């Protein structure tokens, strides 16, 4: 045997060839994602045409032609309307939003007392962010402070009347402050109440079950406006003569009860999805009802329905805007209230204000939904199909 290698078998791997030009990079992406079939190509062209027709005017209106700062309505009105803009001008009136920003945030809250709202806001953010980040420790004390201590401090700070703080009645609250207070209270009341209602609906005691079913189905069958209407017109009728309580509190009760009925149905979905073996396993370990529910069933059930719970939260947050129908002024109500300000009334004012309010609502709701997706992925222990 000689060592001479006469084989023409290749010893080393050949470098992979680059794919043909149509199969790589941007060309491949365009071919697969935009013009895969003739129908696709037509759709792409139509969509591009629609965008070309729609986007430039929108961007112009939002940014290019918009008037950003100014003392009064003249910057947002054309010459014919008594302003300084050229004829046929159309742009967002951000100057209006700029000038009214404080009002939109705090409503008619006294100017020199706004620091109290700011302080509550800072506390809220400082407590909420560590609670939302999974890696930060001390979740339990944090949650206790957030849900039990913080509301009390916030109540005294916002309402005042103690410790030398001047009293600010709730009719002077407004704007984003009202939106956030109603949604925070609604969220923190409706979750425990909804869980209780859902457990009641699954209870083996017929009377308890019936009561819960009646409450849930009644509330779910009527619109929130009707519930708010009831809370503001009927609640005073139900109370002993002479006893009346704050309009704001009545709206809060209405919103919280309404949301808890929806929450109950979401939680019930989770309870029903828990396999029977879990209940039986807990029974065979000798756990009582509350131990079984609190340690075995609820942790699994709630984890399953996180998306539903957050959707209810988002719905509640959006629904707070309805309090403007019973003449309370949340963010949307405050924005609308200022359309009529003679200093700023112009054809562009309403739509600019609405776009701003919509943007604020959108940020909160979108943030919540993204966070729920994040939590869902984190808590997914692989039991889901």
């Amino acid at each position, binding site marked *: 045997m000689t060592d001479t290698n006469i084989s023409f078998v290749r010893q080393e791997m050949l470098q992979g060839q680059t794919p043909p030009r149509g199969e790589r990079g941007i060309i491949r992406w365009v071919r697969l994602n935009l013009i895969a079939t003739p129908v696709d190509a037509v759709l792409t062209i139509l969509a591009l045409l629609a965008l070309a027709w729609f986007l430039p005017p929108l961007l112009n209106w939002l940014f290019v032609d918009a008037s950003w700062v100014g003392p009064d309505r003249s910057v947002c009105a054309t010459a014919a309307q008594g302003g300084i803009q050229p004829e046929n001008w159309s742009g967002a009136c951000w100057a209006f939003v700029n000038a009214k920003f404080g009002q939109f945030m705090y409503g008619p809250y006294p100017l020199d007392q706004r620091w109290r709202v700011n302080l509550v806001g800072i506390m809220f953010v400082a407590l909420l962010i560590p609670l939302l980040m999974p890696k930060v420790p001390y979740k339990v004390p944090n949650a206790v402070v957030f849900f039990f201590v913080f509301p009390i401090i916030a109540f005294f700070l916002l309402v005042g009347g103690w410790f030398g703080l001047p009293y600010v009645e709730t009719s002077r609250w407004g704007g984003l402050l009202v939106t956030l207070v109603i949604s925070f209270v609604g969220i923190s009341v409706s979750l425990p109440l909804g869980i209780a209602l859902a457990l009641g609906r699954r209870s083996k005691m017929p009377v308890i079950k019936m009561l819960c079913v009646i409450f849930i189905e009644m509330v779910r069958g*009527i619109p929130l406006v009707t519930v708010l*209407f009831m809370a503001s017109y009927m609640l005073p009728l139900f109370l002993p003569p002479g006893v009346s309580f704050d309009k704001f509190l009545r709206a809060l009760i209405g919103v919280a009860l309404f949301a808890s009925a929806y929450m109950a149905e979401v939680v019930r979905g989770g309870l029903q999805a828990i396999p029977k073996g879990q209940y039986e396993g807990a029974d065979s370990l000798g756990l009582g009802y509350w131990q079984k529910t609190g340690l075995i069933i609820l942790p699994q059930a709630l984890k399953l329905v996180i998306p539903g719970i957050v959707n209810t939260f988002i719905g509640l947050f959006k629904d*707070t805007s309805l309090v403007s129908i019973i003449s309370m002024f949340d963010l949307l109500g405050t924005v609308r209230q200022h359309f009529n300000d003679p200093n700023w009334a112009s054809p562009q004012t309403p739509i600019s204000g609405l776009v701003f309010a919509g943007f604020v609502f959108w940020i909160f709701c979108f943030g919540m939904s993204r966070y729920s997706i994040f939590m869902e992925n984190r808590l997914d222990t692989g039991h889901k199909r």
Partner: protein
Amino acid sequence: MASQDISPGTDSGKASLLNDPKFRGYLFQILAVLVIALLGYWIVNNTIENLQRARLATGFGFLDGRAGFDISSSPYLTYSSDSTFAKALLVGILNTLTVAVAGIITATILGFIVGIGRLSHNWLIRKICTVYVEIFRNVPPLLVIFFWYSGVLAVLPQARQSVALPFGTYLNNRGFYVPSLILGEGAWLAGVAFIIGIVAAFFVKRWAHKRQMATGQPFPANLTAIALIIGLPILALAIKGFPLTLDYPILGAFNLKGGSQVGPEFISLYLALSFYTASFIAEIVRAGIRGVGKGQTEAAHALGLRPGTTTRLVVVPQAMRIITPPLASQYLNLTKNSSLAIAAGYPDLFAVGGTILNQTGRSLEVVVIFMIVYLSLSVLTSLFMNWYNAKMALVER
């Protein structure tokens, strides 16, 4: 022996009573009933006392009184301020139903288009649909109504500079003007023919299904049904010599004359409810289609079904099963959200009831009417949807 000094009856009885889940269950329930009864008694007592103190009469007798206010939109009934409160409420209910039905139809169509668009292979279409869904899902419906009302429709030109649209319709800041249909002599025959067409189509479909089950021979039942439903009325009209005339709106010096007008209140509410609910329906549709396992499509392809047939016979029926229950609750939500009409000034049940409440102060009765109407609407919708759901449900061995 050991039981000498313990009286057995009392001891075992005491222990078993408190630890007996059955007994405790009864105890809790009796307590709950007592608490609720006391609360109810207290509320009723307070209400009676409050009503007496305010010298308010109760009862629904006031419904026969003269309403004394105008309603801007009453397409089905002739209503004037001399009509009764009951009639005003009826107009409100009909208006609620109108906007709810119109909104449901549009929202379903738009929602299905967007939902399917979100699953498109086309990147651009997918992104546009996603942006649509994410925008409308995350803003309050009230804001969408205001957006259409004061943002878009109020900016439209005055009546004199109406925008002319195809088919003789006009758009201005007073609403949308469409030609109105004037029925002549004998037009009722077309209506009868329409109903006959629907009934005949139903029987044709049943017969075709039976035949295909028995012989395997397909029959173009859908085409026949469409031909029957559209063709019969046209035939009836042709026999009578087309007794229909269209009253076109004509642009006058200051206003449009003729035709029928759809007010901006209705348009803004209808568009807002449709656009808002469509974003939720889109998500439901997407989830439903994705919920059908890939194996189903692959198995259908393996059986030699074409893509179109696969979608129609395999994917859609299974997806509908997932879609229907949440779709029903979206329909209910839309109906309930139509109570936001008050924000756009559209006289639906809630707005009319609110006016009556302000005029008569009968808060109790008005709220009871609200609850009855909305609850029965939601019960009716859920009954229908439950029936449909049961029909579509998976029949397992």
